[in-house]
């Protein structure tokens, strides 16, 4: 059957007039198509990617610079969220990657995480609903200076710390940012030697990168349901606290939610992730971002240690980026869904008596117009 030219043109006219242009949709999809999420990217490409994702998905993504590194670079996050039709206060999920410079799979995951949400929220009702209730703040790279340093040459690849200047009488750069947070700072699992890889700095929050996170998140603490900080390696899900003698009040729930996440992760590619506190399954430590988040009252706080278990450690092959990110996404989503449903009474949808047409609704309306029109064209015998 052939459509007449008139039918096609009329249909296109209607489609354009319904407010839908292919421009922003195409650009949004284009941003996710052009960028290769299965490769490691240097920092300038990650900054560019953040701009592209924001520009291509303005209804979902906005960005913010919330601090500067020791060397003066922007610490940037992407905020993912949809308009809440009732203008209700949204709850917050925090995800950060790249506190430790050499853990390249972590920033790769944060990028993957954003891509996955951008690509699927329009066809995933549950995700769309959660984004109406939640704002998800994603920082792809916290330790920008350290990350850039690991790209400088072959001998810098395994750098871990920030790049702050050596203290007096030392020649060693950098602080272990994940020992610098204000959470039992300096008590256990740290070094006061500035040359050590677990050097905790001169005082809690002495490092601008750690301070930036603490200042920004503290302003939203009451709305924050969940704090996820992404690292490698070891295939672990760590819950607070790093101090062997301190337990979180909701320890049992943290364990069961963590174990549910590990089970979801295993379903994807069969990989085992062990769940427990750091003193149980790794080593005691203090001053971690995870502990700080729990201490200020964020009820769910986890460190994800992604692949692998020591064969490649931090030098995880690019061929493993996709499977590692797929399983990590399943785990993160499991926790986010749990905390969302807990806060929103099992996720009963917000009042959808729509007063403002979101992009999604507009698209559906346009498609309805199009398919109705097609039906009319067909039945009216306009087709030859």
């Amino acid at each position, binding site marked *: 059957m052939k459509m007449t030219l008139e039918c096609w043109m009329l249909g296109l006219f209607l489609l354009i007039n319904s407010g839908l242009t292919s421009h922003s949709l195409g650009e949004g999809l284009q941003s996710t198509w052009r960028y290769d999420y299965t490769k490691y990217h240097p920092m300038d490409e990650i900054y560019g990617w953040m701009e592209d994702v924001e520009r291509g998905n303005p209804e979902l993504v906005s960005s913010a610079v919330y601090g500067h590194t020791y060397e003066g670079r922007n610490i940037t996050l992407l905020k993912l969220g949809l308009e809440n039709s009732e203008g209700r206060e949204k709850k917050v999920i925090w995800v950060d990657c790249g506190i430790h410079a050499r853990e390249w799979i972590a920033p790769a995951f944060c990028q993957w995480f954003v891509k996955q949400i951008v690509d699927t929220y329009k066809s995933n009702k549950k995700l769309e609903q959660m984004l109406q209730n939640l704002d998800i703040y994603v920082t792809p790279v916290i330790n920008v200076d350290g990350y850039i340093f690991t790209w400088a040459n072959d001998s810098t690849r395994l750098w871990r710390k920030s790049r702050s200047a050596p203290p007096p009488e030392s020649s060693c750069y950098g602080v272990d940012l994940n020992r610098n947070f204000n959470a039992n700072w300096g008590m256990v699992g740290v070094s006061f030697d500035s040359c050590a890889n677990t050097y905790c700095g001169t005082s809690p929050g002495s490092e601008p990168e750690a301070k930036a996170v603490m200042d920004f998140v503290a302003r939203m603490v009451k709305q924050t349901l969940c704090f996820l900080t992404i690292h490698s390696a*070891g295939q672990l899900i760590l819950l607070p606290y790093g101090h062997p003698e301190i337990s979180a009040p909701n320890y049992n729930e943290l364990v069961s939610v963590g174990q549910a996440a590990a089970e979801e992760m295993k379903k994807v590619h069969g990989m085992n992730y062990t769940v427990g506190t750091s003193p149980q399954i*790794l080593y005691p430590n203090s001053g971690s971002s995870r502990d700080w988040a729990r201490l200020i009252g964020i009820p769910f706080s986890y460190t994800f240690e992604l692949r692998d278990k020591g*064969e490649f450690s931090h030098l995880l*092959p690019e061929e493993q980026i996709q499977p590692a990110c797929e399983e990590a996404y399943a785990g993160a989503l499991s926790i986010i869904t749990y905390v969302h449903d807990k806060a929103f009474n099992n996720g009963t949808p917000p009042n959808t008596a729509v007063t403002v047409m979101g992009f999604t609704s507009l698209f559906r309306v346009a498609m309805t117009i199009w398919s109705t029109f097609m039906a009319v064209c067909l039945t009216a015998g306009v087709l030859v």
Partner: protein
Amino acid sequence: MATGKLNPNHYPAQRAAKVVQHYLNTRYGSPYRVFFLHRVHSGNAEDVADSGRKYQLEISVQDLISTNTEKCSAEVLFPGGEQQRSPHVQASCEELRKIDTKAQEEALYQQYKTNPSLLAAHLPDSYGHINPEMKPFWHLGAVASSFIMLNESTENTLFNMAQVANVTQLATENDQLRFDYHILLHEMVSQDIIHWKLQVSWSPSGGVKVLQMEQLPHCHHCEKPPNTN
């Protein structure tokens, strides 16, 4: 220190089990055979009279190349005392299944015996990539590292080889291929990267031997920030 029945997922059993991995690699490893700790099934720890701590473990290890897993029973003794001494390990595995690596080993041996010209660096590279022809030398580096990791292990360490920084082949001697390796080890608890230089010999019949080993100091003032504009 944890004593009695151990939680197999907790770090005391995991660290002791890792020592067994290092031991098995020193005994049975080759360019085509590298073992990795797969799982700890059960563990027990006790103080030993006079000094030291003994672990009894049931574990599984996996051959990285064939991906076969084996069950092993092992005992690890960490000697006590002022001076840090190497742990003693005894292990018996189901049937350290001889997946026949003889042919591959012989081929590699012949190829490099007559023309000792191997030179490689950064295995794996920053992207985790290893050239397939270089993989046997990455494996050989992992096996050689196991001698050091075994010697250096305590209840407070967890070692993995992070990278072969470079490997140079030396002249063949006594029918053994010989190599100079510069290896980076990762120690989990301190998060340190430790540099070692090793002289390694290998042949299919002779197995892997470490002839010389030397820890290299970590050169802090070498880390001046490059021009990172």
